[in-house]
């Protein structure tokens, strides 16, 4: 008999963490030999509530949901994910239960192997060590449901496959389909592509009340090109979109195809109260006092998200959305107060808010792009008053005035589109290192209120210019190398060493900002339209700008440093201090220190890489 090697199984395991990290461990083949495989149909328990568990499960295909003790949905797991280890680490007692939501093929790894690898292989145990803390906090979250809409994907709200009709269908047949399936909305397709949506209300107001014939094509009364969301988006974003646009149904798409519809009813059912309502509260306020009182709740929201183990991406997303809600509401109030704008304008967020990576403590960085119809004599006063008022009120709501005065209230950053375009052309065509250092924030630019096409046009212009002028990228790359990670000889942490901060180093300055800078350079090089750093990394990876695996390294380093930063901020808040970006390495666990060193190491290497990648002609 030949040595039995189940290559399919090993290969499948080794495509995912932590096995991909330990693929060279000779024990893996022996482990694979003891794997058991189960095919589990939709809706069956894999770990039933309060059942003991002695298996580490790997999802080879399919999907499962994780439920808390109280049978609340905690999260959804897909192909390549592992579960069951938390109970193995706790001696077989499982506090959560797992149920298939698709037909699934599971690899069952005996506990003995999990324990063996956990004890013998540091990389393996680190993976679960981190994950264990994560689970612990998720478990805490399940008792504290305040934030679950913020952390659950919108796909988890779907309760049935999409119901649709062809655009040529009559109103009558569309209504029949809706009645038959008892749905309040119907997706309208043309050649299998989603082109519109019809709701109960449309039938009422656009068909019956108008006295349309039943034979009228449904496409006559549908809402064309409805707002859609991606299956990976958070439920909280769906709530936001519904409130912003005053719609009650949002089609959810996956890889461009509709997979269902989320309605306000689904959301209310999921969550009758919670901090998502913080955002709806913001839109309800009519006074600054009201907004201020909400802003005081934000540290609470932030710490809850951290406790609930939202990752940095989720937190950045949530905090940025909250920030954006403040901006929008203030602009609405300002327009009520000073009248509608005489010409279109767009209020733009810069930096972390544009990248949707805000944390708890942020200055405001913003600007105004005005339509080229702008005439200073006629309209100047209006925009001055408007932005002045908004920026001051933002300050009162906890978004401190920008120390560098990069704010819409500064006339320099309140310009018509053509002036902005000229400015950027100048910065890009004749780059000056010093100036660019201050200006890098403008390369993360997102329209948040008003005529967003203005921001879009500007972003397009920036991308075009940047790609055409490689000399500019050389400058940007050089700037991205300015801030070095705090690693000295023997991989010791180098402390910043000034006054109160003498025993600390700045995680943002020395870790997060360098990564953001590096990623921005690559993103500009490949013409990525994304602003969010992780999304940019995905584009960079797809464009093949980095050697294999390096893009993932960057994302990982960002998450590691980001996680320690928000943990640290949470601890500071709980200790009654002002949250900042300084961390004292003495307060870190050895695991955190190790992760941080690894992350900084990645940053250094990648800084070396961009130096070489975008080396100018002269050097």
């Amino acid at each position: 008999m030949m040595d039995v090697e189940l290559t399919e199984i090993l290969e499948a395991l080794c495509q995912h963490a932590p096995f991909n990290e330990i693929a060279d461990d000779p024990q893996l083949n022996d482990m694979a030999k003891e794997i058991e495989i189960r095919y589990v149909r939709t809706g069956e328990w894999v770990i039933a509530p309060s059942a003991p568990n002695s298996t580490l499960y790997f999802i080879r295909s399919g999907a499962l949901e994780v439920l808390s003790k109280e049978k609340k949905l905690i999260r959804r797991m897909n192909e390549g994910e592992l579960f069951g280890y938390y109970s193995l680490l706790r001696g077989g007692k499982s506090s959560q239960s797992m149920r298939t939501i698709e037909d699934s093929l599971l690899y069952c790894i005996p506990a003995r192997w999990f324990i063996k690898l956990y004890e013998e292989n540091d990389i393996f145990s680190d993976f679960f060590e981190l994950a264990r803390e994560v689970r612990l906090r998720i478990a805490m979250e399940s008792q504290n449901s305040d934030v679950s809409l913020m952390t659950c994907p919108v796909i988890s709200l779907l309760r049935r496959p999409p119901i649709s009709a062809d655009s040529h269908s009559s109103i009558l047949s569309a209504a029949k389909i809706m009645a038959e399936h008892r749905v309040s909305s119907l997706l309208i397709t043309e050649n299998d592509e989603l082109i519109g949506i019809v709701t109960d209300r449309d039938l009422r107001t656009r068909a019956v009340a108008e006295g349309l014939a039943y034979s009228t094509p449904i496409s006559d009364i549908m809402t064309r090109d409805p707002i859609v969301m991606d299956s990976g988006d958070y439920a909280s974003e769906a709530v936001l979109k519904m409130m912003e646009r005053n719609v009650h149904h949002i089609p959810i798409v996956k890889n461009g195809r509709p997979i269902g519809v989320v309605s306000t009813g689904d959301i209310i059912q999921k969550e009758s109260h919670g901090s998502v309502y913080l955002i709806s509260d913001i839109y309800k306020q009519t006074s600054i006092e009201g907004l201020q009182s909400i802003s005081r709740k934000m540290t609470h929201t932030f710490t809850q998200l951290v406790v609930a183990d939202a990752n940095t991406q989720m937190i950045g997303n949530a905090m940025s959305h909250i920030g954006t809600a403040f901006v929008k509401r203030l602009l609405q109030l300002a327009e009520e107060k000073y009248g509608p704008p005489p010409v279109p304008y767009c209020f733009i967020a810069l930096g972390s808010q544009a990248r949707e990576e805000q944390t708890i403590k942020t200055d405001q960085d913003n600007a105004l792009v005005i339509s080229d119809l702008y005439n200073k004599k006629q309209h100047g006063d209006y925009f001055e008053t408007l932005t002045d008022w908004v920026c001051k009120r933002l300050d009162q709501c906890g978004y401190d005035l920008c120390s560098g005065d990069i704010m819409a209230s500064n006339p320099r950053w309140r310009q018509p589109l053509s002036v902005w375009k000229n400015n950027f052309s100048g910065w890009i065509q004749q780059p000056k290192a010093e100036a660019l250092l201050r200006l890098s924030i403008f390369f993360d630019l997102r329209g948040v209120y008003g005529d967003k096409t203005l921001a879009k046009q500007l972003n397009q212009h920036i991308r075009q210019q940047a790609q055409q002028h490689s000399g500019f990228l050389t400058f940007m790359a050089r700037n991205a190398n300015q801030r070095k990670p705090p690693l000295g000889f023997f991989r010791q942490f180098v402390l910043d060493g000034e006054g109160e901060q003498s025993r600390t180093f700045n995680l943002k300055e020395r870790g997060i900002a360098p990564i953001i800078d590096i990623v921005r350079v690559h993103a500009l090089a490949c013409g990525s339209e994304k602003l969010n750093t992780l999304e940019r990394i995905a584009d960079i990876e797809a464009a093949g700008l980095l050697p294999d695996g390096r893009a993932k390294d960057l994302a990982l380093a960002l998450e590691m440093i980001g996680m320690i930063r928000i943990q640290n901020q949470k601890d500071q808040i709980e200790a009654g201090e002002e949250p900042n970006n300084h961390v004292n390495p003495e307060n870190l666990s050895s695991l955190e220190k190790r992760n941080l060193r690894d992350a900084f190491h990645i940053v250094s290497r990648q800084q070396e890489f961009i130096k070489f990648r975008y080396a100018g002609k002269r050097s």
Partner: protein
Amino acid sequence: MSQSFVKKIPQAKRQDWQAMYAEWAEEAPEGPLKRFYQAGIIAPQQLLKDTPLLALDLETTGLNPSTDEIISLGLIPFDHKIIRCKGARYWMAKPERSLNAESVTIHEITHTELAEAPRLEAILDEILSALTHKVIVVHCVAIERQFLLEASLKIYGYPLYFPVLDTMNIERQVTFKPWWQRFGKRPSLRLDACRQRYKLPRYKAHHALTDALSSAELLQAQIAYHMDPNADIASYWL
């Protein structure tokens, strides 16, 4: 997926495998094959859910059982819920005639690998003892059973024959539609195509052990969808 059921074989049409095994145990020449038949067979009343199953797949030099030869064989034990990699086994066997280039490209087993492998007669004893007291599961009964029968005739001078669950046959039944309901092509019954209907992952085909694993997983899915785990095994075996 539609809920169609695999027809159970009615009592009258069932082969009496126990009686046949008893007869062959008498007739077969002394040796491993006789011992295989003497060991007997799983009782036909055994419930499907309690039956020890063994997925089997072999790779051959070609498709003709009388002229082509077995070059590798994979086995994996399982039941309707659990597949046990621990019992997985795999053999390669050196054929008497040399390989043609075409079959090498299919199963990717090379001359050098086979040159070092034993002849089938050296390992068939071992294979037989692995098959003892299991119900064999294959995808396409004609191939596997025929090749093993030919090999046994050549090596022991007496046929090897056993009941099987055939995942291809099961799939044929559940995808069958009379011609007036059929639209376009008949669904494919290839192993990979069958697996896709149950959303099972894509595997690289044509490795005897992987294919054995593939059909084991497929049968689990088929049982979950179309078969009655509480029926006796004789209602499904062929």
